[in-house]
Protein backbone atom coordinates (compact mmCIF):
# COMPACT_ATOMS: atom_id res chain seq x y z
CA UNK A 1 0.00 0.00 0.00
CA UNK A 2 1.39 3.41 -1.01
CA UNK A 3 2.50 5.71 1.78
CA UNK A 4 0.15 8.59 2.41
CA UNK A 5 1.39 11.90 1.03
CA UNK A 6 0.24 13.85 4.08
CA UNK A 7 0.67 17.45 2.90
CA UNK A 8 -1.20 16.75 -0.34
CA UNK A 9 -3.76 14.24 0.88
CA UNK A 10 -7.45 15.10 1.03
CA UNK A 11 -9.08 15.54 4.44
CA UNK A 12 -10.96 12.29 4.04
CA UNK A 13 -7.77 10.31 3.39
CA UNK A 14 -6.11 11.89 6.40
CA UNK A 15 -9.09 11.06 8.59
CA UNK A 16 -9.12 7.40 7.48
CA UNK A 17 -5.43 7.09 8.24
CA UNK A 18 -5.80 8.82 11.61
CA UNK A 19 -8.70 6.49 12.46
CA UNK A 20 -6.14 3.65 12.34
CA UNK A 21 -4.25 5.39 15.13
CA UNK A 22 -1.76 7.44 13.09
CA UNK A 23 -1.18 10.78 14.68
CA UNK A 24 0.70 12.54 11.85
CA UNK A 25 -2.37 12.82 9.58
CA UNK A 26 -4.35 14.17 12.54
CA UNK A 27 -1.71 16.81 13.13
CA UNK A 28 -2.05 17.85 9.48
CA UNK A 29 -5.84 18.10 9.88
CA UNK A 30 -5.34 20.28 12.93
CA UNK A 31 -2.98 22.61 11.05
CA UNK A 32 -5.47 22.93 8.21
CA UNK A 33 -8.53 23.68 10.31
CA UNK A 34 -7.36 25.04 13.65
CA UNK A 35 -8.23 28.65 12.73
CA UNK A 36 -11.79 27.74 11.80
CA UNK A 37 -12.34 25.78 15.03
CA UNK A 38 -10.77 28.53 17.11
CA UNK A 39 -12.89 31.15 15.30
CA UNK A 40 -16.08 29.27 16.16
CA UNK A 41 -15.07 29.01 19.81
CA UNK A 42 -14.20 32.69 19.88
CA UNK A 43 -17.46 33.76 18.22
CA UNK A 44 -19.38 31.94 20.93
CA UNK A 45 -17.23 32.71 23.98
CA UNK A 46 -15.87 36.15 23.11
CA UNK A 47 -12.74 35.54 25.14
CA UNK A 48 -9.41 34.68 23.50
CA UNK A 49 -8.01 32.57 26.33
CA UNK A 50 -11.21 30.58 26.84
CA UNK A 51 -11.57 30.10 23.09
CA UNK A 52 -8.01 28.78 22.91
CA UNK A 53 -8.61 26.29 25.73
CA UNK A 54 -11.94 25.10 24.34
CA UNK A 55 -10.61 24.79 20.77
CA UNK A 56 -7.69 22.67 22.01
CA UNK A 57 -10.13 20.60 24.05
CA UNK A 58 -12.13 20.04 20.87
CA UNK A 59 -9.06 18.65 19.09
CA UNK A 60 -8.34 16.33 22.02
CA UNK A 61 -11.95 15.13 22.02
CA UNK A 62 -11.83 14.81 18.23
CA UNK A 63 -8.88 12.43 18.47
CA UNK A 64 -10.52 10.38 21.23
CA UNK A 65 -13.72 9.98 19.23
CA UNK A 66 -12.27 9.79 15.75
CA UNK A 67 -13.23 6.14 15.34
CA UNK A 68 -16.86 7.15 15.80
CA UNK A 69 -16.71 9.52 12.81
CA UNK A 70 -18.79 7.89 10.09
CA UNK A 71 -17.87 10.22 7.18
CA UNK A 72 -21.50 11.31 6.85
CA UNK A 73 -20.43 14.95 6.97
CA UNK A 74 -17.16 16.72 6.33
CA UNK A 75 -14.49 16.41 8.99
CA UNK A 76 -14.62 20.16 9.65
CA UNK A 77 -18.39 20.06 10.20
CA UNK A 78 -17.92 17.19 12.65
CA UNK A 79 -15.10 19.00 14.46
CA UNK A 80 -17.09 22.23 14.55
CA UNK A 81 -19.99 20.42 16.21
CA UNK A 82 -17.64 19.03 18.86
CA UNK A 83 -16.35 22.55 19.43
CA UNK A 84 -19.90 23.99 19.63
CA UNK A 85 -20.90 21.34 22.18
CA UNK A 86 -17.86 22.12 24.31
CA UNK A 87 -18.63 25.86 24.08
CA UNK A 88 -22.23 25.23 25.14
CA UNK A 89 -21.08 23.10 28.09
CA UNK A 90 -18.64 25.83 29.05
CA UNK A 91 -21.27 28.56 28.77
CA UNK A 92 -23.79 26.55 30.76
CA UNK A 93 -21.24 26.08 33.55
CA UNK A 94 -20.39 29.78 33.50
CA UNK A 95 -24.07 30.70 33.49
CA UNK A 96 -24.72 28.56 36.55
CA UNK A 97 -21.93 30.38 38.37
CA UNK A 98 -23.36 33.80 37.60
CA UNK A 99 -26.37 35.43 39.14
CA UNK A 100 -29.32 35.98 36.83
CA UNK A 101 -28.66 38.90 34.58
CA UNK A 102 -31.19 41.32 33.15
CA UNK A 103 -30.65 39.64 29.80
CA UNK A 104 -31.66 36.31 31.28
CA UNK A 105 -34.83 37.75 32.77
CA UNK A 106 -35.78 39.44 29.53
CA UNK A 107 -34.72 36.59 27.32
CA UNK A 108 -38.10 34.99 26.76
CA UNK A 109 -40.24 38.13 26.69
CA UNK A 110 -37.80 40.23 24.71
CA UNK A 111 -37.88 42.87 27.42
CA UNK A 112 -38.64 46.46 26.53
CA UNK A 113 -37.74 46.03 22.90
CA UNK A 114 -40.90 44.03 22.47
CA UNK A 115 -42.77 47.31 22.68
CA UNK A 116 -40.32 49.35 20.65
CA UNK A 117 -40.54 50.14 17.00
CA UNK A 118 -37.58 48.85 15.03
CA UNK A 119 -36.03 51.53 12.87
CA UNK A 120 -35.25 50.80 9.26
CA UNK A 121 -31.89 49.20 8.87
CA UNK A 122 -30.09 49.08 5.58
CA UNK A 123 -26.93 47.01 6.07
CA UNK A 124 -25.32 47.60 2.71
CA UNK A 125 -25.67 51.34 2.78
CA UNK A 126 -22.28 53.09 2.55
CA UNK A 127 -20.39 50.10 3.85
CA UNK A 128 -17.74 47.77 2.56
CA UNK A 129 -18.10 44.09 3.36
CA UNK A 130 -15.09 44.08 5.67
CA UNK A 131 -16.44 47.13 7.51
CA UNK A 132 -19.82 45.49 7.84
CA UNK A 133 -18.19 42.33 9.20
CA UNK A 134 -16.39 44.37 11.83
CA UNK A 135 -19.60 46.11 12.79
CA UNK A 136 -21.53 42.86 13.03
CA UNK A 137 -18.72 41.42 15.11
CA UNK A 138 -18.93 44.36 17.50
CA UNK A 139 -22.72 44.05 17.69
CA UNK A 140 -22.55 40.29 18.30
CA UNK A 141 -20.17 40.91 21.21
CA UNK A 142 -22.85 43.03 22.87
CA UNK A 143 -25.51 40.32 22.79
CA UNK A 144 -26.30 37.99 25.66
CA UNK A 145 -24.78 34.56 25.24
CA UNK A 146 -28.19 32.98 24.53
CA UNK A 147 -28.92 35.46 21.75
CA UNK A 148 -25.41 35.26 20.31
CA UNK A 149 -25.38 31.44 20.37
CA UNK A 150 -28.71 31.08 18.62
CA UNK A 151 -27.61 33.53 15.91
CA UNK A 152 -24.25 31.85 15.41
CA UNK A 153 -25.82 28.41 15.14
CA UNK A 154 -28.57 29.53 12.77
CA UNK A 155 -26.91 32.18 10.62
CA UNK A 156 -23.32 30.93 10.45
CA UNK A 157 -23.62 27.19 11.07
CA UNK A 158 -26.89 27.00 9.10
CA UNK A 159 -28.44 24.74 11.69
CA UNK A 160 -32.20 24.11 11.65
CA UNK A 161 -34.43 25.07 14.58
CA UNK A 162 -34.67 21.49 15.82
CA UNK A 163 -30.90 20.99 15.71
CA UNK A 164 -30.40 24.20 17.67
CA UNK A 165 -33.02 23.14 20.21
CA UNK A 166 -31.20 19.84 20.70
CA UNK A 167 -27.80 21.49 21.09
CA UNK A 168 -29.06 24.19 23.44
CA UNK A 169 -31.28 21.75 25.35
CA UNK A 170 -34.43 23.82 24.94
CA UNK A 171 -37.70 23.70 22.98
CA UNK A 172 -38.14 24.76 19.36
CA UNK A 173 -40.46 27.51 20.63
CA UNK A 174 -37.67 28.90 22.79
CA UNK A 175 -35.30 28.80 19.82
CA UNK A 176 -37.82 30.76 17.71
CA UNK A 177 -38.32 33.29 20.46
CA UNK A 178 -34.61 33.71 21.16
CA UNK A 179 -33.82 34.03 17.48
CA UNK A 180 -36.53 36.65 17.01
CA UNK A 181 -35.34 38.86 19.85
CA UNK A 182 -31.70 38.25 19.01
CA UNK A 183 -32.28 39.60 15.51
CA UNK A 184 -34.22 42.62 16.75
CA UNK A 185 -31.59 43.41 19.33
CA UNK A 186 -28.80 43.00 16.79
CA UNK A 187 -30.61 45.41 14.46
CA UNK A 188 -30.94 47.93 17.27
CA UNK A 189 -27.23 47.69 18.13
CA UNK A 190 -26.23 48.04 14.48
CA UNK A 191 -28.38 51.17 14.17
CA UNK A 192 -26.74 52.71 17.23
CA UNK A 193 -23.28 51.85 15.86
CA UNK A 194 -24.23 53.45 12.56
CA UNK A 195 -25.30 56.60 14.39
CA UNK A 196 -22.02 56.65 16.33
CA UNK A 197 -20.11 56.30 13.08
CA UNK A 198 -21.93 59.22 11.49
CA UNK A 199 -21.63 61.56 14.42
Amino acid at each position, binding site marked *: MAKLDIPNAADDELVRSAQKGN*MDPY*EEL*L*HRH*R*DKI*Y*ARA*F*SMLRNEEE*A*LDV*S*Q*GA*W*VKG*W*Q*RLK*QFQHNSSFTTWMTRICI*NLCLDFLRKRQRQQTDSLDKMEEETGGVERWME*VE*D*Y*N*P*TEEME*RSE*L*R*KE*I*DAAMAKLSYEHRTV*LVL*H*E*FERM*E*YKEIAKSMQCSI*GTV*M*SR*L*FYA*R*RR*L*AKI*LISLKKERKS
Partner: protein
Amino acid sequence: MKQEDRLKIQAWLDDELAPKESARIADLIDNDLEAKELAEDLRAIQKALDVGEKPAVLEDSREFYWSQVERQIEAEEPITENVQPELVSGSLGNALRWLIPVGSLAAISALMLNFNSINTTPDLLETGEPGIEISLPSPVNSPSGLTEGSGTIPEEGSPTTPEVGVFSFEGTQNGGNLSSPEDPNTLPESIENPER
Protein backbone atom coordinates in the same frame (compact mmCIF):
# COMPACT_ATOMS: atom_id res chain seq x y z
CA MET B 1 -50.45 41.25 15.26
CA LYS B 2 -50.07 38.28 17.56
CA GLN B 3 -46.60 37.30 18.73
CA GLU B 4 -47.20 33.82 17.36
CA ASP B 5 -47.61 35.30 13.88
CA ARG B 6 -44.43 37.35 14.27
CA LEU B 7 -42.50 34.17 15.07
CA LYS B 8 -44.13 32.44 12.11
CA ILE B 9 -43.09 35.25 9.78
CA GLN B 10 -39.54 34.68 10.94
CA ALA B 11 -39.93 30.91 10.49
CA TRP B 12 -41.33 31.56 6.99
CA LEU B 13 -38.18 33.56 6.12
CA ASP B 14 -36.03 30.77 7.55
CA ASP B 15 -37.93 28.20 5.48
CA GLU B 16 -38.98 26.32 8.59
CA LEU B 17 -42.75 26.22 8.03
CA ALA B 18 -44.88 23.40 6.68
CA PRO B 19 -46.27 24.12 3.17
CA LYS B 20 -49.83 24.85 4.33
CA GLU B 21 -48.74 27.26 7.08
CA SER B 22 -46.20 28.80 4.75
CA ALA B 23 -48.97 29.71 2.29
CA ARG B 24 -51.02 31.34 5.08
CA ILE B 25 -48.06 33.45 6.27
CA ALA B 26 -47.18 34.47 2.71
CA ASP B 27 -50.76 35.64 2.33
CA LEU B 28 -50.54 37.56 5.62
CA ILE B 29 -47.33 39.33 4.49
CA ASP B 30 -49.00 40.31 1.22
CA ASN B 31 -52.08 41.75 2.87
CA ASP B 32 -50.98 43.10 6.24
CA LEU B 33 -48.70 46.16 6.34
CA GLU B 34 -47.30 45.41 9.79
CA ALA B 35 -46.50 41.86 8.75
CA LYS B 36 -44.86 43.13 5.58
CA GLU B 37 -42.67 45.61 7.50
CA LEU B 38 -41.60 42.98 9.97
CA ALA B 39 -40.65 40.60 7.17
CA GLU B 40 -38.57 43.36 5.55
CA ASP B 41 -36.77 44.15 8.83
CA LEU B 42 -35.94 40.52 9.44
CA ARG B 43 -34.80 40.12 5.85
CA ALA B 44 -32.46 43.11 6.24
CA ILE B 45 -30.80 41.47 9.24
CA GLN B 46 -30.48 38.19 7.37
CA LYS B 47 -28.82 40.06 4.52
CA ALA B 48 -26.40 41.79 6.88
CA LEU B 49 -25.38 38.49 8.45
CA ASP B 50 -24.82 36.98 5.00
CA VAL B 51 -21.49 38.81 4.79
CA GLY B 52 -20.23 36.26 7.30
CA GLU B 53 -18.07 36.54 10.35
CA LYS B 54 -14.95 38.51 10.95
CA PRO B 55 -12.17 35.89 10.73
CA ALA B 56 -10.41 35.06 13.98
CA VAL B 57 -6.82 33.90 13.66
CA LEU B 58 -4.78 32.04 16.24
CA GLU B 59 -1.65 33.82 17.36
CA ASP B 60 0.10 30.67 18.63
CA SER B 61 2.49 28.99 16.22
CA ARG B 62 1.36 25.73 14.58
CA GLU B 63 3.99 23.74 16.45
CA PHE B 64 3.17 25.20 19.84
CA TYR B 65 -0.57 24.73 19.39
CA TRP B 66 -0.13 21.11 18.28
CA SER B 67 2.32 20.35 21.10
CA GLN B 68 -0.28 21.43 23.65
CA VAL B 69 -2.98 19.30 22.05
CA GLU B 70 -0.61 16.33 21.76
CA ARG B 71 0.34 16.63 25.42
CA GLN B 72 -3.30 16.58 26.47
CA ILE B 73 -3.99 13.57 24.26
CA GLU B 74 -1.05 11.67 25.75
CA ALA B 75 -2.05 12.66 29.28
CA GLU B 76 -5.55 11.30 28.80
CA GLU B 77 -4.67 8.13 26.88
CA PRO B 78 -3.63 5.91 29.81
CA ILE B 79 -7.05 6.51 31.36
CA THR B 80 -8.74 5.30 28.21
CA GLU B 81 -6.54 2.20 28.13
CA ASN B 82 -7.41 1.33 31.72
CA VAL B 83 -11.08 1.53 30.89
CA GLN B 84 -11.07 -1.56 28.71
CA PRO B 85 -10.45 -4.27 31.34
CA GLU B 86 -13.09 -2.77 33.57
CA LEU B 87 -15.62 -2.63 30.77
CA VAL B 88 -14.98 -6.31 29.96
CA SER B 89 -15.25 -7.47 33.54
CA GLY B 90 -17.82 -4.87 34.53
CA SER B 91 -20.46 -7.36 35.67
CA LEU B 92 -17.92 -9.33 37.70
CA GLY B 93 -16.65 -6.14 39.28
CA ASN B 94 -20.18 -5.10 40.20
CA ALA B 95 -20.90 -8.52 41.70
CA LEU B 96 -17.71 -8.40 43.75
CA ARG B 97 -18.60 -4.97 45.04
CA TRP B 98 -21.56 -6.63 46.79
CA LEU B 99 -20.05 -10.03 47.47
CA ILE B 100 -16.99 -8.74 49.31
CA PRO B 101 -18.84 -6.88 52.09
CA VAL B 102 -21.50 -9.61 52.34
CA GLY B 103 -18.82 -12.32 52.53
CA SER B 104 -16.89 -10.35 55.13
CA LEU B 105 -20.04 -9.86 57.19
CA ALA B 106 -20.77 -13.57 57.02
CA ALA B 107 -17.23 -14.36 58.15
CA ILE B 108 -17.43 -11.94 61.07
CA SER B 109 -20.81 -13.37 62.09
CA ALA B 110 -19.45 -16.89 62.00
CA LEU B 111 -16.46 -15.85 64.08
CA MET B 112 -18.70 -14.15 66.63
CA LEU B 113 -20.88 -17.23 66.89
CA ASN B 114 -17.77 -19.25 67.43
CA PHE B 115 -16.50 -16.90 70.13
CA ASN B 116 -19.88 -17.09 71.82
CA SER B 117 -19.53 -20.83 71.93
CA ILE B 118 -16.09 -20.42 73.55
CA ASN B 119 -17.54 -18.01 76.09
CA THR B 120 -20.13 -20.57 77.05
CA THR B 121 -17.57 -23.30 77.74
CA PRO B 122 -16.35 -21.84 81.07
CA ASP B 123 -19.90 -22.23 82.29
CA LEU B 124 -19.55 -25.88 81.57
CA LEU B 125 -16.23 -25.89 83.37
CA GLU B 126 -17.82 -24.18 86.37
CA THR B 127 -20.15 -27.09 86.73
CA GLY B 128 -17.29 -28.86 88.36
CA GLU B 129 -16.61 -31.19 85.51
CA PRO B 130 -13.12 -30.27 84.40
CA GLY B 131 -11.58 -31.84 81.40
CA ILE B 132 -14.82 -32.53 79.60
CA GLU B 133 -14.06 -33.60 76.18
CA ILE B 134 -16.30 -32.57 73.41
CA SER B 135 -16.01 -35.12 70.76
CA LEU B 136 -15.55 -33.56 67.38
CA PRO B 137 -15.34 -35.48 64.19
CA SER B 138 -11.99 -36.35 62.80
CA PRO B 139 -10.06 -35.66 60.68
CA VAL B 140 -9.13 -32.16 61.80
CA ASN B 141 -9.48 -30.61 58.38
CA SER B 142 -13.11 -30.76 57.43
CA PRO B 143 -14.20 -31.21 53.85
CA SER B 144 -15.70 -27.73 53.91
CA GLY B 145 -12.20 -26.33 54.03
CA LEU B 146 -12.55 -25.09 57.60
CA THR B 147 -9.62 -25.93 59.85
CA GLU B 148 -10.81 -27.19 63.14
CA GLY B 149 -9.11 -27.28 66.50
CA SER B 150 -8.52 -30.38 68.54
CA GLY B 151 -11.92 -30.06 70.16
CA THR B 152 -10.50 -30.35 73.64
CA ILE B 153 -11.47 -27.55 75.93
CA PRO B 154 -8.53 -26.89 78.23
CA GLU B 155 -8.78 -26.28 81.87
CA GLU B 156 -8.88 -22.72 83.09
CA GLY B 157 -5.42 -21.20 83.22
CA SER B 158 -3.88 -23.60 80.80
CA PRO B 159 -1.94 -21.99 77.94
CA THR B 160 -4.14 -21.24 75.04
CA THR B 161 -2.99 -22.41 71.69
CA PRO B 162 -4.18 -21.06 68.39
CA GLU B 163 -6.08 -24.21 67.59
CA VAL B 164 -8.24 -24.11 70.72
CA GLY B 165 -11.83 -24.08 69.72
CA VAL B 166 -11.19 -21.81 66.80
CA PHE B 167 -12.27 -22.26 63.25
CA SER B 168 -10.12 -20.36 60.85
CA PHE B 169 -11.87 -19.25 57.68
CA GLU B 170 -9.11 -19.63 55.18
CA GLY B 171 -11.39 -19.66 52.18
CA THR B 172 -13.21 -16.52 53.25
CA GLN B 173 -10.06 -14.65 54.01
CA ASN B 174 -8.80 -15.30 50.54
CA GLY B 175 -12.08 -14.29 49.02
CA GLY B 176 -12.08 -11.08 50.96
CA ASN B 177 -8.59 -10.06 50.01
CA LEU B 178 -8.86 -6.27 49.68
CA SER B 179 -5.76 -6.02 47.60
CA SER B 180 -7.20 -8.19 44.85
CA PRO B 181 -7.47 -6.55 41.42
CA GLU B 182 -11.26 -6.62 41.59
CA ASP B 183 -11.31 -4.52 44.72
CA PRO B 184 -13.41 -1.40 43.95
CA ASN B 185 -10.86 0.69 45.80
CA THR B 186 -8.17 -0.30 43.36
CA LEU B 187 -10.27 0.27 40.24
CA PRO B 188 -10.24 3.59 38.38
CA GLU B 189 -12.75 5.93 39.99
CA SER B 190 -14.47 7.32 36.97
CA ILE B 191 -14.45 6.68 33.32
CA GLU B 192 -15.60 9.27 30.92
CA ASN B 193 -18.46 8.22 28.75
CA PRO B 194 -17.15 8.36 25.22
CA GLU B 195 -20.59 9.34 24.01
CA ARG B 196 -22.01 12.72 24.86
